[in-house]
């Protein structure tokens, strides 16, 4: 079975608070690490949350477990980890308001 892969979930798009990436199915993985990099200056900080769900349908969004990390204006990287398992269907990244604390 596949043991690791890298997938760009979103690129070159303007992100607003509470935007969520398209779901990426990774039920085969034990762990997901999500990275975010700003491509321009932006206007405020935010937090990146990892969402996981057992369902392939985004209509059934449910953040069963999640961690969050800071997203700074460019140029920066952020990284969030989430333990997922074969019981989970997909994972995605959501950005919310406020500085990370």
């Amino acid at each position: 079975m596949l043991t690791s892969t890298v997938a760009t979930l979103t690129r070159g798009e303007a992100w607003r608070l509470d935007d969520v990436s398209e779901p990426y199915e990774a039920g085969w993985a034990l762990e997901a690490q999500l990275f975010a990099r700003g491509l321009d200056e932006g206007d405020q900080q935010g937090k990146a949350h990892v969402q996981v769900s057992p369902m392939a349908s985004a209509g059934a969004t449910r953040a069963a477990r999640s961690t969050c990390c800071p997203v700074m204006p460019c140029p920066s990287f952020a990284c969030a980890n989430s333990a997922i398992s074969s019981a989970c269907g997909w994972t995605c990244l959501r950005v919310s308001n406020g500085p990370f604390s």
Partner: protein
Amino acid sequence: MQPYPHRFADPQLDKFDPLGRILVHDTFSAGLNGWIGLIGNYEDSLTKMLPVFRPMNQPMLSTAVGWDSGSHGAMSGPYAMKIATRPIKGAMNLALKRMTFRKLGRIQLEAYIAAKPEPSEAVLSIEDLRSFGMFMDLQSRQYRGLPHLRFLNCLDGELKHTWQFKQQTADDNVVSSSARTRSLQHLYPHGWEDVPDGRQDTCYNELPTKMNWQYLKVGVDLRDMSFTSFQFNDREFDVSGMGVMRMEPWANLDCMLNIGFFVETDSDKRSFLFVDSVLLSGDF
């Protein structure tokens, strides 16, 4: 005496009818095998990428989970390659595999696939999926050829159930300040023509969570970039009236052999194309 001497002992191969040499035989329970999303050409900045390519994202390994049954699984194993559009009417997504060819001759692509809308509500949803199809991007020293085929399921809410091809040469744009990188607009929605006698009722099944794996076969001759065969399930189509998008060779693409699958949505709901297995063969 074997009753079927032309058959394969391996049932994973025996469900295909390959030409003499098998180049690719991919299933997706162990990985994506080099299948990847399409990144539009650009230099300098991502903003140079043509709009049609920007929303495209990566294929994934999926057990095809539905809310009413759980994991559907694939035909050949637990995982299929899943290509998903965004939930925006008219959105398209695709996955492709990039190779080169070693002989200018006939090639043949076969696959078992299933196209479904996202099972996000308890309705039939048959009008939600616009189309699914295949394309190739090929280049000999004489031509660049891009065979395109799609099953137009529904357009603006009206069921069509018609196969279409695209032969109208697409525009291209320079997408770099150096003027060395161009991008071909072959995936824009215009330019489709109906395959002669191309109407076909396929197996959608009664729920968006029920998937039936369906057989697709497309043959192409690299020498003149023409279709040589086209079959979907039990229908074999006459390819004499089907053309291929063909143009002068581009720089840096000698012997290119790219194969891909795509899906389009006809509503503000994701559409999925699941690919169970792919076989590419050639006559050498």
